[in-house]
């Protein structure tokens, strides 16, 4: 019986997660509280929020587990930058400075900042934390586990075998050979921000054709045993962590795309960049497929769990589910570094003799929204507040009329996806709503698709093969059924796929009620569901963020609990 806090941070996506007596009690990403996008600093506020939610104090903790081994990371950073001499002249002092100036002392700092005894603070390997986050929250008693990201301490990719409460490493691929760094480098080449723009590359890929395979085959070689090798002359992650690619890549693919230019996919210039994205996506899918097949061959398991930033590639996950030979696939909803906090907490809990947690039924592991405070503050701000007797029908009616509604219910989600707790809802059949959302509210590139949320029991009617262990958490895509392709125009991507979320009473009861009401009003239990955040901002956490969003974005209404809040005098 133990209370264990897991911590990730000091690189990007800092988070804290609390496991008490083998039960996942809370998991919070620091950015939601600090309002700094991808906040990397030690997640002290998130840790305190988790403890407060459980009614615990720092002194009640039996263990705090950091998701990475700091000394091993220092060693890798030092050796890799030194070996890149003289290209890493500027990077070396900066990288070593960051390590010695803080990161290497992270366990002491956690103990000091949280006020826990130093001997209670331990660490675990980065990829082990990822693997634990995926396997121990999956519904499988035994599975192959793949963790794929940029880099942890020295590992970029690892293969594991999970059986009940145990995880055994079967193999690893080490830095600098990394699918995450390949994707990040090309993300920067295409003019997007690394660690932020990878989703955009995935969306862009559907608009292109994989015509540059010969070129990309020079950048990465795939081997028969599932491993891969980067041709390092094209990269610069050891010399320039921001950019990730070198001038040789521009010689191969042409000049990088300037970040500020508006996307015009009908022009030759941008079609070529879309083709590069499509080729990158194809190569990434094939690399992941190779790894997954190797995992299947080595473990003989019927189920696969995935984690690590690359596992957020929903399109690749769909291919793995179709082609790798597994019966079932699960991807942790916070597959990126934030998820490592939960994995670290679970590992600590298991070590202290607690049982393995139950499979994740809902990602609503954050802090609840305060409906009373939202009402009072909205009044203070001069907004119109009205309780609704039937909030689900009211939301459905507004959405059916083409309105855009911000929807806040209960505890916020764990991971980068809005799953009905902090969502923006719109009519899935109305392309005008999509345009308005893209241009006026989210201010994002026109090629990026929106996702549908659908009631699980009706999903098969609208989407092909939607019922999987990934769709409750929006970590895969599936084709829109032929008869509904025109009607679901606002949530269908250019390749007729959609990143579907299957909703049940258990996972998001309020959203399920809205979808039921939508079935009555528009004849489909489906809503366009996107995250409740402005451009470049973290997803809304509390009532203050939600009201701020309403006041600064042209949405039609904000729903908090059973309150309908609109602009204009009360």
């Amino acid at each position, binding site marked *: 019986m133990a209370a264990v806090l897991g911590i990730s941070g000091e690189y990007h996506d800092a988070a804290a997660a609390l496991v008490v007596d083998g039960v996942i009690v809370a998991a919070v990403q620091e950015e939601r*509280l*600090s*309002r*700094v*996008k991808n906040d990397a600093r030690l997640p002290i506020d998130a840790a305190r929020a988790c403890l407060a939610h459980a009614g615990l104090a720092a002194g009640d903790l039996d263990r705090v587990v950091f998701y990475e081994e700091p000394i091993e990371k220092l060693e890798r950073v030092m*050796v890799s930058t*030194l*070996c890149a*001499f*003289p290209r*890493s*002249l500027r990077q*070396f*002092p*900066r990288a*070593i*400075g960051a390590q010695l100036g803080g990161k290497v002392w992270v366990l002491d700092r956690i103990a000091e900042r949280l006020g826990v005894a130093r001997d209670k603070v331990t660490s675990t390997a980065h990829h082990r934390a990822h693997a634990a986050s995926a396997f121990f929250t999956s*519904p*499988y*008693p*035994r599975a192959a586990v793949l963790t794929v990201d940029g880099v942890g301490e020295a*590992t970029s990719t690892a*293969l594991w075998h999970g059986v009940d409460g145990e995880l*055994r*490493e*079967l*193999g*690893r*691929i*080490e830095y*600098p050979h990394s699918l995450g760094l390949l994707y990040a480098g090309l993300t920067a080449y295409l003019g997007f*921000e690394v660690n932020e723009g990878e989703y955009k590359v995935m969306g862009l890929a559907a608009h292109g054709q994989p015509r540059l395979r010969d070129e990309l085959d020079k950048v990465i070689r795939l*081997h028969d*045993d599932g*491993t*891969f*090798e980067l041709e390092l002359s094209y990269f610069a992650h050891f010399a320039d962590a921001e950019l990730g690619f070198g001038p040789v890549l521009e010689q191969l693919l042409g000049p990088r795309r*300037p*970040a*500020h230019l508006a996307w015009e996919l009908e022009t030759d210039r941008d079609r070529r960049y879309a083709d590069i994205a499509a080729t990158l996506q194809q190569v990434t899918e094939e690399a992941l497929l190779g790894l997954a097949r190797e995992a299947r061959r*080595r473990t*003989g*398991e*019927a189920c696969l769990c995935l984690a690590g930033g690359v596992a957020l590639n929903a399109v690749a996950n769909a291919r793995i589910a179709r082609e790798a030979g597994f*019966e*079932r696939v699960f991807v942790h909803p916070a597959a990126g570094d934030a998820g490592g906090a939960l994995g670290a907490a679970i590992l600590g809990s298991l070590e202290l003799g607690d049982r393995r947690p*139950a*499979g994740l*039924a809902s990602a609503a592991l954050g802090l609840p929204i305060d409906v009373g405070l939202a009402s009072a*503050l909205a009044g*203070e*701000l001069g907004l119109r507040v009205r309780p609704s007797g039937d909030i689900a029908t009211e939301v459905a009616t507004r959405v059916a009329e083409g309105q855009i509604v911000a929807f806040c219910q209960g505890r916020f989600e764990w991971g980068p996806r809005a799953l009905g707790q902090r969502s923006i809802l719109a009519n899935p059949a109305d392309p005008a709503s999509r345009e308005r959302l893209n241009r006026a509210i989210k201010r994002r590139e026109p090629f990026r698709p929106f996702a549908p949320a659908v009631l699980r029991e009706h999903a098969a009617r609208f989407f092909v093969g939607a019922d999987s262990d990934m769709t409750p958490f929006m970590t895969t895509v599936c084709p829109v059924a032929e008869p509904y392709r025109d009607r679901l125009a606002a949530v269908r991507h250019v390749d007729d796929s959609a990143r579907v979320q299957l909703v049940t009473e258990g996972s998001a009861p309020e959203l399920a009620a809205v979808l039921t009401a939508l079935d009555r009003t528009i004849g489909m239990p489906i809503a366009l569901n996107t995250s409740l955040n402005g*451009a*470049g901002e973290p997803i809304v956490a509390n009532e*203050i*963020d939600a*009201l*701020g969003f309403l*006041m*600064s974005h042209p949405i039609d209404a904000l729903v908090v609990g059973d309150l309908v809040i609109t602009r204009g005098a009360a």
Partner: protein
Amino acid sequence: MTRSRAREGTVRAGRQALVRLVTPIVWRVPGHGARKLYGFARAEQGSRIDLLQAAQRTPSLARRALYLRHALDETRHARMFWRRSTELLLAEQREPFTAPVADTEALFARLGEVRFLAFVHRGERRGRQQFELYARHFGARGDARTRALFEAILTDERRHESYTRELLVELVGGERAARRELGRAAAWEAWRTWRRAGRAVAGAVYALAMTAIYLVAGPIAAIGARFRRRRSRWQLEAAAPPAADPAADPAREAAS
């Protein structure tokens, strides 16, 4: 007027005179104007985050609303400064900056509400004075667009300056106590500047030392790297994996 207030007034006037003197030179340096506007965008973005955190932490509903409104103004200002910076850079055929990202110093948590308010008030007053100067400067130069930008933001800055002062007086119970808090905030800012300068010097010394180490150790490491085979294959060979149990039901009940 006390002696300390007179001294403060003199310092402020001196600073203003200096800014007036260098402004025409500084803004004419190619690319510098855009960089400066981008700097303002980042500062507004940082202020936005601090104010959102203040809105989360203050116990008063009324102040929560005030801080939230202020934070939304800062968001708008950040966007306006960034947009103008982008326009100027594109006009000079330079690549614009990416969306401004700022950090937070968690000022509300560190300073407490009273000192935080004093700090914000001082920042707003400084910003207002600076922006008035810049608005006049761009008006005189005939750059109506940049002048309009500063004037639009000035309207908000004046309001922020005034409400933070009123709140501060209300919280500490009078003008005299408010002035004392402003003085303490000024002292804290000076201490912060001193520490930042110290960090910058230490950083430079450290970078120098690291560069020296790099220049000595780098060539040896690089030579070593040439002979070291970069392995991309599986690094850890598996022991025999536990046998899969095909009869077992792979699904476990997901707990609710």
